[in-house]
């Protein structure tokens, strides 16, 4: 396996837009190509994450349009990867594997999405397609519903009174909005309080509006190449030290999903490949689609013992400057969650952080960062570990 590095990265502002999915991706990808100091003709493959483009714009087969939009030649391999909300991370992991194996030298990978434009009713329906369409979707289950049930399961299992858990969940939102307020590309750049969260309307008991990430539009992309090529073009290559991916079936088959075997397996692969453990990670961009999701994943990734992460949040351990900075970008909660682009935006943030380019939200002395992206109800999980030293 060849050593693999990220050169340039690019990302649009997240939030409602009048740009198409192709335009959003092309803008992010061209930024990444320019930042890599290469020409578009140097790109051999384009791996595109996209979740719901079919419903958003009536557009299938987006990858070819994106390649053409960027002026890539006819011999370019252009493919769409779909793993629901983890689509871009699946694309990036595959780019990593194929560059590592020698199949390609330079790949642009990322994603695009225009979920905001669907409106709440259709967006809620199409997002729910990430659950089992035969055995679960007919109950009217929604994604807020999946995580609302997780909150009840968690409170009951660990005997944490629901009002206490809800207060700690609100603190996740407060932290991520605080970080997002310092991110010029975030959908929400405004701080909130615990009271803001607890005053919001109920989406799915016990989750309120500010427990939930928004519907978003946006694009993000990274250029993946070999160590040798990266060193010739950029000053600070960021290395992909480890990558993992796990899978699971229907939520009901996962039973007590406060413990997610697909996530544990994915993280384990990534840690093993990188030769590090949870204690070595300085910061992580993780899948906080809902506030309770961030609490539960912190335990599944091994940062905290099961049942203890909500207390760690209350103590401020997951803030920038805390024990481990979680979602310095503002996370899905404040930065926004354009499904197919989310994983690439997580990598974008970790790369920028490792290069010390994050200004007011900079995590000091960060050497190793991790991403965690969840697709569907843990049907697809991807973890990447990035570092500035090989």
């Amino acid at each position, binding site marked *: 396996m060849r050593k693999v590095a990220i050169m340039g990265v690019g990302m649009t502002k997240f939030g409602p837009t009048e740009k198409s999915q192709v335009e959003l991706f092309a803008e992010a990808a061209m930024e990444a190509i320019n930042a890599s100091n290469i020409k578009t003709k140097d790109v051999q493959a384009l791996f595109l994450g996209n979740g719901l483009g079919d419903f958003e714009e009536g557009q299938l087969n987006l990858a070819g349009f994106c390649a053409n939009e960027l002026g890539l030649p006819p011999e370019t391999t252009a493919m769409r990867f779909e793993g629901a909300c983890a689509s871009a991370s699946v694309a990036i992991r595959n780019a990593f594997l194929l560059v590592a194996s020698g199949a390609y030298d330079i790949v642009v990978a990322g994603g695009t999405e225009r979920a905001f434009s669907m409106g*709440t*009713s*259709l967006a*809620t*329906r199409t997002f*729910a*397609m990430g659950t*089992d*369409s*035969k*055995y*679960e*979707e*007919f*109950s*009217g*289950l*929604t994604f*807020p*519903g999946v995580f*609302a*049930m*997780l909150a*009840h*399961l968690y*409170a*009951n299992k660990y005997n944490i009174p*629901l009002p206490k858990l809800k207060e700690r969940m609100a603190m996740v939102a407060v932290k991520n909005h605080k970080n997002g307020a310092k991110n010029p590309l975030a959908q929400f750049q405004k701080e909130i309080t615990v009271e803001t969260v607890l005053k919001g*309307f*109920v*989406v*799915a*008991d*016990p*989750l309120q509006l500010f427990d939930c990430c928004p519907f978003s539009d946006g694009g993000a992309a990274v250029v993946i190449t070999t160590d040798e090529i990266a060193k010739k073009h950029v000053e600070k290559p960021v290395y992909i030290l480890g990558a993992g991916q796990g899978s699971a*079936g*229907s*939520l*009901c*088959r996962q*039973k*007590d999903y406060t413990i997610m075997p697909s996530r544990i397996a994915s993280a384990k692969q990534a840690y093993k490949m990188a030769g590090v453990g949870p204690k070595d990670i300085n910061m992580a961009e993780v899948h906080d689609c809902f506030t309770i999701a961030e609490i539960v994943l912190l335990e599944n990734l091994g940062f905290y013992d099961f049942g203890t992460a909500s207390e760690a949040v209350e103590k401020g351990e997951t803030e920038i400057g805390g024990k481990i900075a979680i979602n310095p970008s503002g996370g899905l909660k404040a930065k926004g969650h354009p499904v197919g682009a989310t994983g690439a935006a997580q990598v974008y943030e970790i790369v920028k952080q490792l290069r010390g380019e994050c200004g007011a939200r900079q995590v000091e002395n960060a050497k190793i960062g991790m991403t965690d992206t969840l697709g569907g109800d843990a049907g697809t999980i991807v973890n990447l570990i990035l570092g500035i030293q090989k």
Partner: protein
Amino acid sequence: MYKLTYKQYFEALKEGKLLGLKCNDCGSYTAPPKLCCDKCGSTNNEVVTLSGKGVIKTFTVIRVAPEGYDAPYIVAMAELEEGPWLMGNIANVDPDKAKMDNIIGKKVTVGAKVLPKMNYTPDEGVTPAFIIAE
């Protein structure tokens, strides 16, 4: 190859019969059905009628519904006597009165709710509807 397809499972559920698979190798039960035993992966399974009794493990009240559904309604997961968990609705509780202490841990029997074909579904849908014992 399939001992029990989703369509056969739905048809039985509509008639009030909860079907599942019993593994002849490891003895565990799989429901809803799939190609192999959910525990050991064996395809040496037989179709059995399950007791239709279980306990609610978790729930939510959906207040922002997807296109095609009318909020509010309760979605819950129940653990069956035989071991598998099922996703479904709770049929006999007012959504506005559903709280952790009057839902979680309650014994239920499994009924069914039929949904008409809608956009992006191949046919009508059937979902378990849990009835909390009085």
